[in-house]
């Protein structure tokens, strides 16, 4: 999934690390190390995603974001910040950010979120569908019925929401943090492998006895739902 990404980050080491990683994933990366250049680039050229640091010399990340949205540039923005508290996150999202990631973050987490933003941009209609399908797995969002290969699968309410989220993002890497935020609406790190255990329970219900597993663990990142 190639795309063009604008990275606005003043810390050269973090910028190198992110740019190199995105480059290896096949993205084209434009860089700016201060707010003014960042705003200029963001309004002047077409990008698929903007990765924006919160604290920048020249122009603060929040101000840049507001100016960008005021200029009706609707490019998805993921905000990076050493300010990880709920207040800071809410401020970022209110200013128009599509996602918010506290520093330090793992590259896998950033990559998963960048990819999710790009896909959401490409296929926004899926969120409206009432029946979700992934290979022979079928989830009916109205009757809350889940079937695989004709077999009825009984799920707890939370397991249903977990599977629903995974199916909405099938083929993508979803991280533990993304799941915790989307399915449980918690924005703190429970610190242990809480989510892994939930996934492994769900995985047993979906994949046990099937020839083709649909759940895949992506090492160092999270999970992916889909064939192979």
């Amino acid at each position, binding site marked *: 999934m190639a795309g063009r990404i604008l990275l606005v980050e003043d*810390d050269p*080491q*973090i910028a190198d*690390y992110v740019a*190199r*990683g995105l480059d290896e994933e096949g993205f084209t990366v434009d860089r700016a190390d201060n707010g003014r250049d960042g705003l200029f680039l963001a309004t002047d050229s077409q990008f698929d995603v903007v990765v924006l640091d919160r604290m920048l010399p020249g122009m603060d990340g929040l101000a840049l974001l507001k100016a960008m949205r005021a200029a009706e540039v609707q490019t998805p923005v993921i905000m990076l910040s*050493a300010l*990880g*508290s*709920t*207040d800071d996150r*809410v401020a970022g999202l209110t200013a128009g950010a599509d996602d918010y990631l*506290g*520093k*330090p*973050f*793992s*590259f*896998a987490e950033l990559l998963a979120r960048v990819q999710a933003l790009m896909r959401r941009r490409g296929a926004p209609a899926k969120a409206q569908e009432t029946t979700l399908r992934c290979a022979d797995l079928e989830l009916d969002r109205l009757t809350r019925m889940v079937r695989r290969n004709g077999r009825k699968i009984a799920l707890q309410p*939370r397991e249903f929401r977990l599977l629903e989220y995974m199916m909405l993002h099938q083929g993508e890497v979803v991280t533990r943090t993304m799941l915790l935020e989307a399915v*449980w609406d*918690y*924005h*703190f*790190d*429970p*610190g*242990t*492998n*809480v989510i892994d*255990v*939930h996934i492994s*329970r769900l995985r047993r219900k979906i994949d046990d006895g099937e020839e083709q597993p649909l759940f895949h663990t992506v090492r*160092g990142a999270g999970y992916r739902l889909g064939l192979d």
Partner: protein
Amino acid sequence: MASIRTRLSSTMTRLVVAIFVLQLLSSALAIFFLRGQMLDVVHADRVRQVVDVREDLLAAYYDGGRAELADFIANRRGSASDPTVFTALTGDGPPVLSNLTRAPDLPPSTQPLPVVVHRGPGAAGIEGVAVASVLPDGELLVVGVMSATERRFDLAFATAIGLTIAVAVALALASALVLGVVISRRTHEIADTAAQLAKGNFGARVAVEETGDGFDHLRMQMNLMAERIDRLVSELGSISGALAHDLRSPVARLTAAIDTALVRVDEPAALEALHAARADADALRQMLDTALEITRLEGGATEDRRVPLDLAEVAQDLVELYEPLAEQSGFELVADTAPVTVRADRELLSRALANLIDNAMKYGGRHITVRTRADGHHGEIAVCDDGAGIATEDRARVVERFVRLDNARTLPGGGLGLAMVAAVAHLHGGELVLSGDDGLIASLRLPR
């Protein structure tokens, strides 16, 4: 009334009694002084009276001789008409007596002297003062005044003393009580502020009345002390906050470097080392996050996102989140909830509760219960375990930042968990209470 009783205990009682006794003594002294003064005045009056009467009698003598004097005495004329005045003229002839049965035996003098006189046969002697003068014809003239009035004075004084004591007792008791209550109230005010400070409310101050007395001095010094404690504590907090903040960027770079190395290394031993380093970097980041969060919470620098929230739902959601992990690790994690609505920030409260559940799984026993209930004006959400618990004397200490008990040093964790929970409780106007006899009950009490 219990408060009155405690207010009058020990020191207060002694003070009240001392004030009472002193006041009584001072009234008694005043009365005796007054009595002495009055007796002196009365005595001086009497002396003057004796001298006056003598002058009158002598004047009569010089006017009309002995006969005139005898008539004056016998008929009690002029100043001699006073019923307390007695006179005696003794010499060659029969004695002329007035108000007496027998002439007193008195040597001649210029100043009146004390004397005992008799007014009837067998009657008791009456004290008085008298002066004896020798007339030019050699006869002796005694003029005196009886002091019967002094007895009446003493009686009056006895009554007065009795009355005064009664009034003084009442007044002393009342003033001692008022004084006691006032002193007690003021000291309690100051002590209450000290207690607030001890509880960690460093913003507590005593109201200064600028009366300039010792209490005011104490209040001012107390406030200065509180000011200093407040400043030191907030400095400590901001230092640890700034430190945590400054450490985040190096940790971010460390994590980035490890991640970069992880994708380029294939050798199993190197990979294992890198994964271990990555886990430690994560733990470090989490500690810094929590330290920062505590600083923010304690500084009150967080937006108010409190909404009416059913604690039972908060508890059930977290139990639901942790239950699979608990089961896998061999714990029994259950919710025992009663609906109780408080104004709370779901995210912060859940984070605090997650910390408590995490703690219970690290240090607790096999059974963990997340319990909610209404308790008067408070909503309570508690995590109860059946583990080793925390010794009573350690309970206050463990909620401090970076404090870990000896038995916890071998387990992972930064010693920030309970400090964070306490900070969340304080932000909600509530408190973290640690209790429990078997195991630990960590309870967040939040105002309803």
